[in-house]
């Protein structure tokens, strides 16, 4: 183990020399104590590294020796800075360690047969946000203070309670369904039509956002191919189909079931197409007003913004389904 006495001022060399020491004992024709160049180690030992069994053995050995060695090394080493120097050992070790965390996403490339259309629609949406949506949202934000915009956001959120109710129920999340119902009752009355959220601030009742796409995901339906929807942005096959049942439950849209029930004999809200469109646009502008900077910041330094949004959306949806 003379190899250990060599340039130990650098932590990297220490490890290589250690490896060298072990290998020297394995391969009798090699001299000990010759200059320790990391690459030589790898060249001479490639055959051994190729087989996973011996690789594992080697690693075990290294670990064992490393522990013994670490004590001796501590005194001589000042600051082995592995931030600057690339440590080859780390690849081996990390490959196994991070296999489950990142491995699957690497092997399974996203199947995106509509990529041509998607990229075009993504480009259109992007153009629309930057040139139309966001300027309008900025103007709107200039007029309406944050408190007001938050209240409007809460109002719309409260309004689509039926969507959350039904989908929580579909997923048999009974407690959440109850919590949502309580929230709707409290916020619609004490919370002045949902403009305020006393259910949360006074009673600590949390919202549980669920939609039909999440319900399907909950029962194991995969996202399917990615689809970029006009104006709405990135989605996938499952969530695109799911828009329809949720739309039926959305009280904002006339002719849907809750509306038919609510509007029987009243004329409070029986919108025609234009009104419906107007309300929807208003809702989106209000929503945009919170997200302008966010979108622009991520857009600015993305390497490929389409891929960023596609996979970011997918990850976010998967997280929502899990919750």
């Amino acid at each position: 183990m003379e190899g250990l006495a060599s340039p130990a001022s650098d932590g990297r060399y220490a490890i290589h020399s250690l490896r060298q020491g072990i290998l020297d004992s394995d391969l009798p024709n090699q001299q000990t104590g010759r200059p320790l160049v990391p690459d030589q180690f790898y060249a001479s030992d490639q055959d051994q590294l190729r087989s996973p069994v011996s690789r594992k053995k080697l690693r075990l050995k290294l670990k064992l020796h490393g522990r013994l060695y670490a004590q001796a090394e501590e005194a001589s080493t000042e600051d082995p800075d592995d931030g600057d120097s690339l440590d080859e050992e780390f690849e081996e070790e990390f490959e196994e360690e991070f296999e489950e965390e990142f491995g699957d996403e690497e092997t399974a490339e996203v199947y995106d047969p509509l990529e041509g259309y998607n990229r075009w629609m993504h480009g259109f949406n992007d153009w629309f946000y930057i040139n139309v949506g966001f300027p309008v949202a900025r103007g709107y934000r200039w007029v309406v203070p944050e408190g007001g915009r938050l209240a409007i956001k809460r109002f719309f959120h409260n309004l689509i309670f039926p969507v959350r109710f039904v989908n929580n129920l579909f997923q048999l999340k009974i407690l959440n369904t109850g919590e949502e119902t309580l929230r709707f009752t409290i916020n619609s009355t004490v919370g002045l039509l949902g403009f305020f959220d006393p259910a949360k601030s006074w009673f600590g009742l949390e919202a549980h956002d669920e939609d039909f796409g999440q319900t399907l995901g909950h029962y194991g339906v995969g996202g399917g191919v990615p689809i970029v929807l006009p104006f709405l942005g990135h989605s996938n096959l499952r969530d695109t189909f799911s828009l329809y049942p949720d739309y039926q439950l959305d009280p904002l849209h006339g002719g849907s079931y809750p509306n038919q029930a609510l509007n029987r004999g009243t004329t409070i809200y029986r919108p025609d197409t234009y009104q419906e469109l107007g309300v929807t646009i208003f809702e989106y502008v209000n929503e945009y007003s919170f997200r302008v900077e966010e979108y622009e910041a991520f857009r600015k330094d993305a390497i490929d913004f389409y891929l960023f949004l596609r996979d970011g959306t997918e990850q976010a949806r998967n997280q929502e389904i899990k919750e």
Partner: protein
Amino acid sequence: MHYLKSFVMTLSLFVLTVPVIQAGDVEDINSMVKKKVAVIFDLLGKQDIEKNERNEKIVGELNEIMDFQLAAYLSLGKHWKKISKTQKKEFVETFQQYINNYIVEKIDLYTNQKIDIGDSKIVKKGRAELEIGILSGGETLQVNFKLRKNKKKEWRVYDVDIEGVSLITTFRSQFSGVLKNSSFEELLEKLKNPTEQS
């Protein structure tokens, strides 16, 4: 008899040391990372120092708790093996620079929202998560710092997870998307000058 004794000894050693190690880990994370995170958010809220100076300080603090080498390796994924050692080195440096710019760009998104730095929890041996809640727009934005203990027994951030969206994974798909159609040099070039695109 001798074997039995040593077996029991070893077993009790394991049983006794495991919780001790974990408790130490949490303390280490608190002193190494959590403190720094608090310092960073404190700097973020500061309006009285010059912006560039403040941003520089923030990036400096962040660089101390980040493991760029690991982050770069994970972001490149399977392509890491295909490039030479010098390229790897260049990539890690470029990546670090890119991340620093990336962070500076995002700093302005923070406008004194309320921050709740949660407890760190050990995920498994040598891995932990630090949960941070950012109260924004009436909702809590959940940000997770993923930590790994390196060989020097320091806890370092290798990934940031925002509402379930892992930064590394988004880089990973973007990088592999670029590398599908263009060379490694072109990716480096893009990292150096991320241009606006439509």
